[in-house]
């Protein structure tokens, strides 16, 4: 009884002594091995309703096992919320690390900087299906000109609007961003209980199209050296356009300044808003609410009539870990998971939009709901700077703070954008 604790202290002391000199690092160089049999481990994200996804993946695995009979594959579904800790931990402890992972496309640059993902430029170039991958999806797996995975699916946002409200007030779906603002105010004036368009001060991905449509950029540059462009004249115009939607004429600042993307979709779904910027993935939430059967979706318009504002292309990728000891097998499995066939099935099962332009056209023909989203993607989408600094900028809420400072009247657009640009440049600078 007494001995065991003492032993534990000794052990602990020994570990402290052995490792006390420096904080720990782990050796995460590539293993160099490329075994052709054994066990492959795969981590995919666990969706709320995961069964259909499992079926699609199981079908892929069945094919894979036919091709490689000596290979076992184990798949684990991890909650998206825990991905940061798990994937970092996997980089630190190769023993626990999987061979193939699914990851959010905004995380790509960070994981590359952490030294976790394998460079697959050659394999990707040699993959015949890859030529149909759309350019933004390709951009989302590319860092510094090198490719670190295969796009798995995309998510994109468009304009949801209430057909019943628009019919009653004799309104048409807006064709420019100016019209959008005017329509929103008309609705709110006629029906003060409704937001014309639900917007959120913390809804960065909903605000970005306004900046891009006005010709602005978040940042300019390539590879390691980005510089913020959020305080350029064009970007400021976009910020002005977005923040002008807040106020008693449309979406009162007191309620809307703090809203995020999900809050605006909730407002729309529950019948509190005549319009909202929502994703293809918001479909289910809207269908469950009061707006069901009384809404339609169009691409978010741009500045000129008939144009489409560039949207942010979210989504997930599949990649191979640098530490894998089954590189060839892992790459093969990755290609199968992200193949045209599997992506088509994943759409049928989960509604996730494929990253291949041709497959996307096919599913749009089958399912009319996704057409505005596919059109938005076809018009060209944009992506956040492929820099590890983006994680810092995102988590320290540089952009929401900027919007909220303007909305709450604490600063004018120029001052808020200037501060945001300075913070972004700090982050770009320290991320190297």
């Amino acid at each position, binding site marked *: 009884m007494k001995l065991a*604790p*003492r032993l*534990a*202290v000794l052990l*602990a*002391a020994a*570990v*402290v002594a052995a490792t*006390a000199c*420096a*904080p*720990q*690092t*782990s*050796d*995460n*160089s590539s293993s160099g091995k490329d075994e052709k049999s054994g066990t492959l481990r795969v981590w995919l994200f666990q969706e709320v309703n995961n069964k259909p996804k499992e079926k699609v993946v199981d079908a892929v695995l069945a094919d894979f096992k036919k091709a490689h009979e000596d290979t076992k594959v184990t798949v684990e579904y991890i909650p998206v919320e825990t991905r*940061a800790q798990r994937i*970092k931990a996997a*980089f*630190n402890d190769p023993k626990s690390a999987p061979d193939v992972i699914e990851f959010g496309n905004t995380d790509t640059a*960070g994981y590359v*900087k*952490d*030294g*976790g993902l394998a460079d697959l430029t050659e394999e990707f170039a040699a993959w015949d299906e890859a030529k149909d991958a759309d350019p933004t999806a390709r951009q989302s797996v590319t860092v510094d000109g090198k490719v670190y995975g295969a796009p798995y699916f995309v998510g994109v946002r468009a304009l949801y609007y209430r057909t019943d409200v628009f019919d009653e007030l004799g309104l048409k779906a807006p064709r420019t961003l100016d019209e959008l603002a005017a329509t929103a105010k008309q609705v709110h004036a006629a029906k003060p209980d409704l937001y014309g368009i639900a917007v959120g*001060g*913390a809804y960065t991905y909903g605000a970005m199209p306004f900046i891009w449509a006005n010709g602005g950029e978040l940042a300019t540059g390539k590879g390691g050296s980005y510089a913020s462009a959020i305080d350029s004249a064009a970007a400021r115009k976009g910020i002005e356009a977005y923040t002008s939607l807040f106020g008693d004429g449309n979406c*009162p*600042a*007191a*309620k809307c*300044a*703090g809203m*995020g993307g999900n809050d605006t979709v*909730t*407002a729309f779904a*529950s019948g*509190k808003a005549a319009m909202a910027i929502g994703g293809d993935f918001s479909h289910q939430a809207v269908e469950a609410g009061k707006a069901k059967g009384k809404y339609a979706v169009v691409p978010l318009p741009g500045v000129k009539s008939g144009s489409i504002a560039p949207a942010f292309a979210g989504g997930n990728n599949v990649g191979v870990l640098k530490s894998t000891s089954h590189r060839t097998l892992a790459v093969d499995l990755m290609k199968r998971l992200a193949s045209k066939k599997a992506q088509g099935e994943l759409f049928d099962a989960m509604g996730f939009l494929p990253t291949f332009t041709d497959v996307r056209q096919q599913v749009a023909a089958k399912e009319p709901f996704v057409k505005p989203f596919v059109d938005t993607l076809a018009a060209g989408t944009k992506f956040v700077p492929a820099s*590890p600094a983006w*994680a*810092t900028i*995102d*988590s*320290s*809420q540089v952009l*929401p*703070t900027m919007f*909220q*400072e303007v*909305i*709450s009247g*604490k600063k004018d657009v120029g001052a808020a954008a200037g501060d945001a640009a300075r913070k972004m440049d700090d982050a770009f600078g*320290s991320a190297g």
Partner: protein
Amino acid sequence: MVLGGLLVYPVYQLGLISFLEYTQAQVSGGEPATFQGFGNYAELFGDGEFWRVLLATVVFAAACVVSTLAVGCALAVLLTRVRAVPRLALMLAALGAWATPAVTGSTVWLLLFDPDFGPVNRMLGLGDHSWTYGRYSAFLLVLLEVVWCSFPFVMVTVYAGIRAVPAEVLEAAALDGASQWRIWRSVLAPMLRPILVVVTIQSVIWDFKVFTQIYVMTGGGGIAGQNLVLNVYAYQKAFASSQYSLGSAIGVVMLLILLAVTLVYLRLLRRQGEEL
């Protein structure tokens, strides 16, 4: 004591890391860790926002501690005055509040006080008043939630402490005709002092480190960061983007502040003749 190693070692590492350049790239061995001296601290102290956040944290934590202790102690005394059924009801309700995961508790409170979807504004007839927009009303809302989920700890502990006071002492005091407040002040409080000391110190530590409630309820620090507290600040500046060295520096600063508060508090107690 056996597991002291598990506590001391990480703290030692924390201090060490705060002097280095240490990000995920260093952790996974991509780049060597380099010594920065007080570089991380200089970066921190040079940031005006840090001081603003620090001040808000201290004031907010103090308000939380005082409210939690007051509510907890008052209800603990109340518990000793009622029969089994109301006592069990209050205890179960309190335990439920305590046991609810912090993220869920914060979400539910947010739903309750939502200007569009919440029942509280309906009941109070506040229309669509937004609680999270104003800096102070947002802090107040978070304070209510923090008190809701942390007073049960104080209540249960102090109640257990009161039960441990021999009944004869209380009866004697009651017979002497002492009022409730007097009994608390001159009989219970001194006897419970060791327990109150612990409860106070723990509350100070927790409320100073409040994270989830602020993060969830004010959307990560409120409109334009007006509701940031130190732990959320550390998370946003450092941990979310794996800048462990800067995060550790903030951790060390928090440690020093809390240590100072604790030591001063204990010193004051000792001056009053109470010994550890």
